[in-house]
C-alpha cells in the first residue's frame, strides 16, 4: 500500500470573509465554522478563536487536537467510519495543512484536563504551541448527558478539520512524502537481509472519555489486529480519550504517529518495517491477557525480529505494556518500550505501576509529576477555573494573577508515550 502525503505549510491563520489557503496563510470564515458546529443540535452556542505560536494565550481544557487533511486521490475519505464511509484508506494521495490544527475545548465533566500555552515555559512542553490553532469552544444544550456531549464535541472537531482540509484539496503541496508498505512476501524479497520490525500501538480503551476508535469501532471491543501504517495517516484511528492530558494520544498524534514516521525513515535502509499491530488497554484483566497474547501471536506469525511498543495513559496500561513485552520477548522477538514516568514530585518514587526484568530497553517521555510554573497569559480560551481540580493541579494551583503551579501532567501531550517529544528523564 502506497500513500503520498502532500504537505502545504501553514505559517499563519486569520479570520476572513472567505475560507481559503493562500501563501501559507489559512483564512477561516468564522460564521461558516460556527454554523457547521451548530448543525449538531446538541450545541446551543459555539465560538471560534485563533491561537498562534508565540501569542500570550492559554487554552484550557483541551479535549482533542486534529490536523486538517483531505483525500486527493485514492479510495475513501479522512476519518473513515466516523465522518467518511468505512472504506479502506491509506493509499493514493492526501493533502495536509501542515502547521495548522483544530483544537476542541469544553467541560464535559467538571475535572476536564489539558492545557496548551502558546508562549512561555509551558509552550516548550507541548508540540501544539507550534501550530496555528483554530480553537472551538462549544456549549452544550442544558441537560446533555456526558456521553452525548463527548461524542458531539469529538465530531465537531472532525467536521471542522474536514472543512479546513477540503480547502487544500486542489492545492499543489510544498513537499511530498511517499510511504509504501509492501506485502509480506514482497518485503521479504526486497529486503532479504534487513531485520523485520513491527510496531505495537496500544490504544486507550476503558469507557467514557477513555476510548479510541478504529474505523469507527470502539477499540475495547476489538481483538488485537493489524493495520497498514498509511491507514493511520488517513485518520483510521481517532481519539475519544480526554483523560491524562500529558500522555493521551490526541487524534493529531495518531495522524502524525512519530514511531511510524521514524520506522519509515529507516525502512529499506536498516530495517524492514512490516506493519502496525494495534492492541487495546481494557479494564478486564482477562482482556489484557487476551490482547497481549494476540500481540505476541501476530508478531510471531509475521515473523518479525523486533517490535516497538508504545503506551497510552497512566496506571493500568503499564500492565498491558509489560504483558506485551514479556510475551513478545518470550517468542524470541526483541522489544523496545516507550512510556512515561510518575516518579513523584521529587522523582524518587517507583515510576511505573508494573515492571519486569525483560523490559530492558525502555524509552522515557519524562516524569509527569515534576512541578512546573506557568506564568499568566494575556488571554485564556476556555475555563481557567478547572486548574484547581484537574490531575496534577491542586488547591491553590491557580494563583490570583493567573499563573499556575502544577505538575507537568496538566499539559497536553507533554510526556507523550509515542515518543513525540524530546523530553526524557534519568
Amino acid at each position, binding site marked *: 500500500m502506497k500513500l503520498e502525503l502532500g504537505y502545504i505549510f501553514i505559517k499563519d491563520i486569520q479570520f476572513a470573509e472567505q475560507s481559503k489557503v493562500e501563501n501559507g496563510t489559512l483564512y477561516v470564515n468564522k460564521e461558516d465554522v460556527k454554523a457547521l458546529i451548530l448543525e449538531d443540535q446538541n450545541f446551543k452556542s459555539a465560538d471560534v478563536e485563533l491561537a498562534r505560536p508565540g501569542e500570550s494565550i492559554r487554552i484550557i481544557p483541551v479535549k482533542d487536537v486534529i490536523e486538517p487533511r483531505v483525500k486527493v486521490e485514492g479510495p475513501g475519505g479522512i476519518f473513515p467510519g466516523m465522518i467518511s464511509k468505512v472504506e479502506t484508506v491509506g493509499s493514493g494521495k492526501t493533502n495536509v495543512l501542515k502547521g495548522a490544527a483544530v483544537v476542541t475545548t469544553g467541560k464535559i465533566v467538571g475535572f476536564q484536563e489539558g492545557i496548551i500555552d502558546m508562549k512561555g515555559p509551558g509552550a516548550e512542553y507541548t508540540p501544539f504551541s507550534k501550530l496555528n490553532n483554530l480553537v472551538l469552544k462549544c456549549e452544550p444544550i442544558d441537560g446533555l448527558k456526558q456521553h452525548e456531549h463527548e461524542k458531539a464535541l469529538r465530531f465537531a472537531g472532525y467536521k471542522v478539520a474536514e472543512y479546513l482540509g477540503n480547502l487544500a484539496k486542489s492545492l499543489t503541496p510544498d513537499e511530498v512524502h511517499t510511504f509504501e508498505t509492501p506485502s509480506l512476501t514482497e518485503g521479504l524479497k526486497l529486503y532479504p537481509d534487513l531485520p523485520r520490525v513491527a510496531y505495537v500501538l496500544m490504544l486507550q480503551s476503558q469507557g467514557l472519555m477513555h476510548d479510541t476508535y478504529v474505523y469507527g469501532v470502539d477499540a475495547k471491543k476489538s481483538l488485537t489486529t493489524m493495520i497498514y501504517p498509511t491507514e493511520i495517516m488517513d485518520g483510521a484511528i481517532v481519539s475519544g480519550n480526554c483523560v491524562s492530558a500529558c500522555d493521551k494520544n490526541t487524534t493529531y498524534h495518531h495522524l502524525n504517529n512519530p514511531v511510524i514516521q521514524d520506522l519509515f525513515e529507516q525502512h529499506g535502509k536498516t530495517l524492514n518495517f512490516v506493519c502496525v499491530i494495534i492492541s487495546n488497554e481494557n479494564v478486564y484483566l482477562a482482556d489484557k491477557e487476551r490482547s497481549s497474547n494476540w500481540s505476541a501471536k501476530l508478531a510471531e506469525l509475521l515473523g518479525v525480529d523486533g517490535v516497538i511498543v508504545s503506551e497510552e495513559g*497512566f496506571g493500568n496500561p503499564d500492565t498491558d505494556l509489560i504483558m506485551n513485552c514479556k510475551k513478545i520477548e518470550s517468542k524470541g522477538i526483541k522489544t523496545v518500550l516507550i512510556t512515561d514516568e510518575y516518579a513523584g514530585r521529587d522523582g524518587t518514587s517507583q515510576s511505573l505501576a508494573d515492571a519486569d526484568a525483560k523490559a530492558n530497553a525502555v524509552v522515557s517521555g519524562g516524569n509527569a509529576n515534576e512541578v512546573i510554573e506557568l506564568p499568566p497569559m494575556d488571554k485564556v480560551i476556555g475555563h481557567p477555573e478547572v486548574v484547581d481540580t484537574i490531575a496534577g493541579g491542586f488547591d491553590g494551583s491557580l494563583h490570583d494573577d493567573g499563573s499556575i503551579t502544577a505538575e507537568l501532567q496538566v499539559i497536553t501531550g507533554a510526556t507523550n508515550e509515542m515518543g513525540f517529544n524530546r523530553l526524557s528523564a534519568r
Partner: protein
Amino acid sequence: MIITNNDLVYSKLKDDYNILYIDGSFRDVLVKTRDKVHAGYELLTHPLSSSLKPNETPYKSVIISDKKGKLNFNSVYIIEDAIIEYDKFNMNIIKKISEKIRKDFKLIDLTVLESALNINY
C-alpha cells in the same frame, strides 16, 4: 463480586451483581481488595482502571472473583503495586471537590466498570 465506594455503582448495579459497598476512601477499596486477594479471590479488573490519577478521583470500583480459590500471585502483585502507586500520589492531598464534580467522577467510575461488565450504551 464488585468492591466499590461509589454509591452510584451500588444503586445502579445492586440488583444484578454481588456488591461489597465500602463506606470509605479509594484506598480503603484497594486495601479491602488486597485482603480478599490474600484470602484467595482472584482480581478480575485492574485496580488502577481509568487514567484518572488516584489523588484526582475519590471513587474506585474493582471486580474480583465470586469464588475463593488458590492464592493468585498475579493478583497479589497487581493489587500490591496498585497500593504503592496510590500512596505515591496521595502524598499530595486530594483537592476540594464540588458536588457536581463528585457526580462526574462517580459516573466515570461507573462507565469504566461497565466497560468490563460489557454493559453498553
